């Protein structure tokens, strides 16, 4: 059963458990959708994570007691609530070469070919449990055990945005250029995070993600189509 905890004088934490599990995360998503639909006056943001939702509110608009009661009612009504299915996003990835400098290493480490690594990496439907750490950074669940790979012993100083990597049992995409120790197996031409775009972040918590392999030409085509300004073709996306 969910617990409603005080996380500050202007937020409550609705906690569904303390574990990484699809079942708990499903409740997190259900609650988020239901709480959003309730449009409670004074609530400013909902922050879903693996196992909880932090509800931020303005105490000058709605007080602790009244919000607590409203949230309890939403929690209790979750069984009957009609939650739309989570969306799905297909993410194109150019594997190996300069876009995935660690692919060969990862393959060697697991005694397989790079093609096998790609096949295993593109097979699952990954669940985006939550976003955090960096804007647009997705915590994906579902990486096949056969390609769990330790982090690099010496992290890189700068990893380009869009890089797809593996760290232990996790796989993910770097939304912006930053330092990091993940083993890089590829790169997506999509911008997961673009502060100038109307939808600044491409993926929502609770969505499913599928990777599919593309070649260099397709990579270029997608970039040219989506981000023509990089090619000096102006900002208007005709």
């Amino acid at each position, binding site marked *: 059963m969910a617990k409603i905890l005080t*996380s500050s*004088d202007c937020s409550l*934490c609705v906690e569904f458990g303390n574990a990484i599990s699809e079942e708990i995360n499903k409740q997190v998503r259900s609650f988020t959708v239901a709480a959003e639909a309730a449009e409670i006056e004074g609530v400013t*943001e909902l922050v879903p994570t*693996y196992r909880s939702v932090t509800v*931020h509110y303005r105490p000058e608009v709605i007080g602790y007691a*009244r919000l607590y009661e409203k949230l309890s009612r939403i929690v209790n009504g979750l069984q009957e609530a009609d939650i739309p299915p989570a969306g799905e996003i297909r993410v194109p990835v150019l594997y190996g070469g300069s876009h995935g400098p660690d692919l060969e290493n990862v393959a060697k480490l697991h005694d397989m070919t790079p093609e096998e690594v790609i096949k295993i990496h593109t097979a699952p439907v990954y669940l985006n449990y939550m*976003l955090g750490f960096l804007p647009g950074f997705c915590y994906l669940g579902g990486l096949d055990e056969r390609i769990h790979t330790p982090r690099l012993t010496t992290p890189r100083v700068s990893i380009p945005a869009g890089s797809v990597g593996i760290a232990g049992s996790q796989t993910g995409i770097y939304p912006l250029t930053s330092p990091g120790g993940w083993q890089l197996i590829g790169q997506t031409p999509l911008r997961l995070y673009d502060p100038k775009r109307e939808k600044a*972040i491409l993926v929502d918590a609770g969505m499913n993600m599928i990777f599919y392999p593309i070649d260099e030409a397709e990579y270029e085509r997608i970039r040219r189509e989506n981000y023509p300004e990089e090619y000096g073709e102006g900002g208007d996306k005709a």
Partner: protein
Amino acid sequence: MITFQKKGLLTTVQDLGRIGYQRYGMPVCGAMDHYAMELANILVNNPRSEAVIEATVMGPTIVFGEAEIFAVTGGDFGPTLNGQPIENDRAYLAEAGDVLSLPMAKAGARAYIAFAGGLDLEEVMGSRSTFLKGGVGGFKGRPIHDGDEIGLRAPCEYLPDLEDRFVPAKMLPELMNEVTVRFTYGPQDDLFSATGKQTFTSSEYALSDKSDRMGFRLDGPPVERAAGSDGNIISDGICFGAIQITNGQPIVMMADRQTTGGYPKLGCVITADLPLLAQLKAGDKVRFRPVSAAAAQAVYRRQQKALNDLEKRFLARLKPEAEGEGELPAPAGRFLIYVDGEEYDIYIEEQNYDA
């Protein structure tokens, strides 16, 4: 336009932060001391959420390219205008060519400069705050450098009764090197032992020099975990002021904090006391006292009411021959009141008796 002749130690553009994007991993950022930031805006007749300049310990030197009303609030940096001392918490008019200088924090750690009409900078995701780590927002996503120029959106050289635009002393917190701040327990206070909580609420902590806009590290007695806790949790959200315990060491999460984290949080500093914390320098001392969420909100509402009243008083001056000397009519609206711990929602509606 304003030109930064000297940048200061860490000078950034900040407002109330990016609201609504934490679920995407986007830090809120914004001013460290919201109260001082809002006061600065009220003084110069800006909306309270307008972007201001935040100075840290050593402030900038700014040259005005045109006449403009401004105000400095927060820490006392010994501000001068053309070399003449000016007061904090008071609106002034600068003429073109005037030089505003905030040399060094004598008390407090962060000062705010508001410019009437606001800074001419683009909003990114609904805010002009600088997100330093992501290189986004504010001025080119970075701290101010020597020689940087920022335009003024709607420069303003006249406000009626400028000499009356100051903050009454009773509204200003005393800037001290030792403070006690209040906090609410939760959400993971159950992961700490009774002894741990006792240690935390009875000890003095010193602000570490490893503190920054992301978090205030505190040196002092370690906070003991409850039996059965390994000192980690599955990640959940982090609020402004959250008291995270990392290997026994408390870290108060500040404006640029990450949105989520895997360390347990014993509690959270109350909103009304965050400004006291934000004004501490490395080595300053802090103690913590627990209060209920309802009590914290009562304090917060009082603080907000004082800001509202000051804002209304100045706004009334803008309306020529408004309502005479009498009280302003109560606006239609909604109020929350407390009677014996019960919360009541009161709606007031306007009625037209002329009909």
